[in-house]
């Protein structure tokens, strides 16, 4: 239980709660980035140390730990927001929901038919809990930028699961996935800038002109 991957995953789950509970936008971005950076270390412990593993870990670290937060900070600088996260429902209820989904992830993860090597490890529960936390962020936050953060947490959850299958992904494809994500965040940043210019706010509740 006390192997390095499990320790990393434990921290990742703790970060989920911290992100769900924090009210400062900048802290939020830094925590998601730190979570991603921690996750990028996982392949190093999991697989034999080949060139491929180092590249995957390095690529993920640069992207999740450095480029993403840089893009997001640039985006909030452009639209000049530093203030709160503006949740649709309060922090305590969100945290309670997060606790519930995490407990569910642990219970559910135990029932899945897993390979003996992955039994009783934190991989599956951590992946599911992070996915759920990402969804919570997407649903319960009003600002466009926090929705992007939710999407990033969601991707982090998928990354945890993906490390189990890293050998099936050729290097080109892996880099393609990471590049796609980077471009996605870049495009989302631009769109956020334009939303702010058109509506003078990043509150997505304003985005309700198109309806039947």
């Amino acid at each position: 239980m006390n192997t390095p991957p499990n320790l990393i995953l434990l921290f990742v789950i703790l970060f989920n709660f911290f992100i769900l509970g924090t009210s400062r936008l900048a802290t939020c971005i830094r925590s998601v980035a730190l979570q991603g950076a921690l996750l990028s270390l996982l392949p190093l412990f999991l697989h034999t140390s080949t060139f491929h593993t180092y590249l995957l870990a390095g690529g993920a670290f640069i992207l999740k730990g450095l480029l993403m937060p840089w893009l997001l900070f640039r985006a909030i600088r452009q639209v000049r927001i530093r203030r709160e996260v503006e949740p649709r429902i309060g922090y305590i209820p969100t945290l309670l929901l997060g606790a519930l989904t995490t407990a569910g992830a642990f219970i559910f993860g135990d029932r899945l038919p897993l390979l003996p090597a992955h039994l009783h490890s934190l991989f599956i529960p951590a992946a599911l809990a992070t996915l759920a936390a990402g969804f919570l962020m997407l649903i319960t936050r009003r600002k466009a930028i926090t929705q992007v953060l939710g999407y990033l947490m969601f991707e982090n959850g998928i990354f945890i699961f993906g490390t189990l299958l890293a050998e099936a992904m050729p290097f080109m494809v892996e880099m393609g996935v990471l590049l796609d994500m980077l471009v996605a965040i870049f495009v989302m940043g631009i769109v956020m800038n334009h939303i702010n210019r058109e509506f003078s706010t990043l509150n997505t509740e304003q985005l309700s002109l198109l309806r039947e």
Partner: protein
Amino acid sequence: MLLYAAIFLPFAAALIAVLLPSDRLRPWLIPVTALIHFSLVLQLTATPTASAGSLIGLDALGRFILFVVSLLYAACSFYALGYFRCHADWENRIFITALLTFPGAMTIAAAAQHLGLLWVAVEATTLLSAPMIYYNRNRFSIEATWKYLLLCSVGIALAMLGILFVGYAGLHGGGEQELLLDRMLASAPLYSKPWLRAGFVFLLVGFGTKMGLAPLHTWKPDAYGEAPGLVGGLLAGGLTSVAFLAILRSVQIMIAAGEQALVRQMLLALGVLSLVFAAIFVIRQRDIKRMLAYSSVEHMGILVIGVAVGGVATYGAMFHVLNNALTKGVLFMTAGNIHRYYGSKRMCETQGALTVLPYSASLFLAGFLAITGSPPFAPFMSEFTILRGMFAGGHLALSAVFIGLLVVIFIGMGGTVLPVAMGPHMEEAEEATDYRETPLTVASPLLLLAAVLCLGIYLPEPLRLMFTEAAKLVEVAP
């Protein structure tokens, strides 16, 4: 070799578009690229190539989808010339670069033999279409773009999870770590069933979001409604076909694993639900482009129902992919012309288009008849084939529901299209714009409609062979 040329050509053209300083010359890159791409694709479809063990290669399905996409793109490219002539003073560098890269990403998706690569290409198409949807640069289009970007990105992320689940199913089945399609198909019978089923559900939800199956279609009316007509046609005809291909890839794996029953149930449920949603929202729809978006939801439903029924209906579904793509091209481009003339896409403000835009409005009307399955147009033939498959399979209740919903959608769409085309002409809108039909903005839809008509009357043997071979790969009937 040809395949690599077809992939790199659009990227090279996009690079030229970025570097080219002139806004006036840049649009010419589109038809040139499209025609070369289409001629490459024609050669590719004529000479089948094996692709064991490589990331990229064209099997029957990929070849077929690539043909559809490239044909539609080539036909739309002339309209693009006319479109940019109307907006000569608009900055078009980003738009045209995205538009030129678009077929490149779709070619990769069609040729991908590795699920990861397929994912990368489909996500790339999402990102490329975002700036195209936002081209009108107003409040409405930014809202549509944001919804499209966020919903499709999250949807595609779910598809990634599905791919990983299917990969884990292989690992659990005692196999190697493998995401290459042909090797997965070979080892699929050994896969761990629970993981495989869960993976399929995620893949269906993920790529289903991209394809616009109800209830995952909510981005569609907004995005298609606000995007320029050209982009709407490419999304509704091309991109949805690529997303359909992604779903078919997962269906292939499920069939190889002997899980036809689940595939059939899930596809039928989503398909019928799509028809129901389309029928509800198409009635009294006041916005012609949103109406077309719901029609697109309907046809996505028809496609998955065809695959779910199996037998001759699978062949019908393949035929319908082509018909849907071509007819949607006609409808969106002519709707774009009407929109541009009146400066509105509300039904009440665009009445009597036949008197002022005789070509566009009559093509719009004919396109409406075609897409709702009136003979002698090709969609009638493909829908009838799907229906025949239902009867052959003994799905009588399903075919009754199918026909009933198609009739409702026909009436609903007619209630919007007929006043727009034939209603009393409105005087005050006359001097609103100086847009006139040009040969360029009419030729593309005319060409596509002629193709739809010809295919309905006579289906060339090579095409029939292509559909049959593609259908063979996703046959769910035992």
